[in-house]
């Protein structure tokens, strides 16, 4: 396209975002993005107005987790940008592709402590994969193209584009590049055919192999390939928290579920006893390994990841393969022999049986977390997208809901950012144009961190069931205090039982709601929440003494 007379940098940005495939832009306006917002009503993408910049970026994140396409957000300079830091960090830690455009004061004023100036590239350096400070309007199309490339290639992550106001106003003729040329950034596989043969041989020789799928498996779109290999060679599959769904719901007999600190006994036992651990797109962080010297002691460890710096970082490995997880699995599949491994699978079955946690009903007769999760599961059958906040409810949802598909369990793993749940659920619901049921599982603490975004769910009439798992406390921290601080529940128990009154909060946004206190009313209430046409808030008063189990410390 030729831009004879040229157009403003702001218009060039909007066109570039369109060219890059943006369908939805989440954002919040302000002075230093005014020129861009002026062009938004005529853009080909949809715009969604959040209520806080953290919410906007979590929405873009939820959109990306649910679809695999980069989420896109825009905020103003200064406070607009600083409000996004937590949400950028959440996306960065979990490797979620995202583009954040921020306004900046005019180039001539940078460094003068101008009104609403912030050092955006400095502030976001540690929470983004890369960032750009645009120097002229001419750079805008190329920068947008590069940002999308960087966000989605190699290990995905958030990329920030900071655009000074004068660059938005200037006229430019530069066009969106036909191809992207980055001189120094070429994420590539270094895997050789020998590596693949070695991996296949290790699998064929192993008697007690375990596959371990992390978020990188989902990013690579490899859930089905994991399941296929698992079935062919009878290898059980465990997942990380962000890898939930990355096992492609391997056969029941092969599913180990979550491993790690709150993992199933069967998964942790299998890893401890394995003679081969095939880790796919995991980071082996401390919530997974516990004490590294004790981790998977009997196993040879194979680590496949697209990020070379991740391999061997936390756990020494016997074979490291820098490559796309899907590529490796498809190559190795034909070289792996079909096998039964009946003895190994039988052992796992018995661990699964004995590991079933016998739950005692709560003394108070209050609703137990399991009763709630099972009631939700019976309605959704694993077909709804579930977004969680952070805390006990997050782990209960991970452990107790059935997970059948990848990109159907959205949770802040690496950052553990409270406030993620409500906006991430909204981003996911918007991605599917309101056609897909979304369930947000929230704590009564975290729900208060981004509750203002309920306005967006109401405006857009999104089919989201906001389930507040109300234990009147910051349960996860309370549990930690009970275990490690002799029950000194400092600052973790809320004083009022109905403070806030979540039903009134919902009604302030015009959202229908219910509160359940008794187990016999649970099924009907969950049914109402999950069949509502628009948003619905369900407050479930659960046993405040309920704990997350198991909790493994090594």
């Amino acid at each position, binding site marked *: 396209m030729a831009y004879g007379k040229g157009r403003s940098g702001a218009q060039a940005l909007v066109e570039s975002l369109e060219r890059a495939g943006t369908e939805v832009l989440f954002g919040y306006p302000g002075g230093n993005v005014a020129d861009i917002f002026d062009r938004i009503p005529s853009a080909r993408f949809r715009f969604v107005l959040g209520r806080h910049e953290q919410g906007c970026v979590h929405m873009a994140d939820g959109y990306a987790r649910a679809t695999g396409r980069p989420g896109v957000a825009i905020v103003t300079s200064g406070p607009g940008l600083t409000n996004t830091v937590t949400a950028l960090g959440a996306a960065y830690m979990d490797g979620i592709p995202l583009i954040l455009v921020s306004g900046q004061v005019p180039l001539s004023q940078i460094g003068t402590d101008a009104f609403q100036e912030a050092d955006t590239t400095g502030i976001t350096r540690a929470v983004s994969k*890369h960032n750009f*400070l645009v120097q002229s309007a001419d750079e805008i199309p190329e920068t947008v193209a590069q940002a999308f490339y960087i966000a989605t290639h190699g290990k995905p992550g958030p990329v920030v584009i900071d655009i000074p106001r004068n660059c938005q106003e200037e006229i430019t003729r530069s066009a969106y590049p036909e191809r992207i040329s980055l001189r*120094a950034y070429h994420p590539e596989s270094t895997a050789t055919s020998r590596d693949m043969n070695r991996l296949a041989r290790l699998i064929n020789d192993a008697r007690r192999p375990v596959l371990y799928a992390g978020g990188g498996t989902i990013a690579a779109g490899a859930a089905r390939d994991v399941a296929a290999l698992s079935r062919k060679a009878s290898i059980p599959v465990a997942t990380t928290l962000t890898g939930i769904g990355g096992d492609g719901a391997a056969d029941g007999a092969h599913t180990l579920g979550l491993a790690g600190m709150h993992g199933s006994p069967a998964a942790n036992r299998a890893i401890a006893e394995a003679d081969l651990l095939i880790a796919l797109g995991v980071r082996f962080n401390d919530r997974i390994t516990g004490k590294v010297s004790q981790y998977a002691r009997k196993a040879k460890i194979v680590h496949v990841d697209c990020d070379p710096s991740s391999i061997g970082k936390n756990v020494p490995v016997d074979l490291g393969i820098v490559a796309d997880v899907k590529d490796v699995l498809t190559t190795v599949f034909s070289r792996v022999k079909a096998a039964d491994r009946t003895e190994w699978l039988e052992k796992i079955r018995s661990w699964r049986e004995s590991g079933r946690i016998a739950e005692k009903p709560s003394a108070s007769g209050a609703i137990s977390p399991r009763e709630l999760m099972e009631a939700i599961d019976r309605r959704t059958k694993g077909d709804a997208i579930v977004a969680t906040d952070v805390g006990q409810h997050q782990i209960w949802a991970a452990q107790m809901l059935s997970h059948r598909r990848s990109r159907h369990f959205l949770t802040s793993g690496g950052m553990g950012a409270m406030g993620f749940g409500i906006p991430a659920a909204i981003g996911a619901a918007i991605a599917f144009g309101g056609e897909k049921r979304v369930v947000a599982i929230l704590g009564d603490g975290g729900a208060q961190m981004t509750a203002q975004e309920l306005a967006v769910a109401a405006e857009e009439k999104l089919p989201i069931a906001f389930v507040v798992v109300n234990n009147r406390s910051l349960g996860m921290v309370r549990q930690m205090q009970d275990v490690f601080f002799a029950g000194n529940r400092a600052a973790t128990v809320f004083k009022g039982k109905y403070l806030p009154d979540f039903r009134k909060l919902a009604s302030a946004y015009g959202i229908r709601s219910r509160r359940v206190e008794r187990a016999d009313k649970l099924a009907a209430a969950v049914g109402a929440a999950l069949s509502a046409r628009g948003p619905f808030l369900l407050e479930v008063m659960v046993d405040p003494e309920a704990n997350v189990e198991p909790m493994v410390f090594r």
Partner: protein
Amino acid sequence: MKEETYRLNCFVENRPGVLARIVGLISGRGYNIQTLNVGPTEDGTVSRMRIDVLGTRRVVEQIILQLRNQVNVIEVVSRRL
């Protein structure tokens, strides 16, 4: 493992912000840069940064891999001093 001094020669794109990114990556992880020297190369679009850091081999290898992940880093060569 014992700590030793390593010299990292980083060839990077000559753009604003690259130095800060690289120094931030190293210092943000708690490692002290002992010497830092930045200069041009024959190719005006490429700069060379010579960075001496003290650390164990494992840590320094990790730093190098993370430096190579940076979008503006063209190559890193290292040696023990």
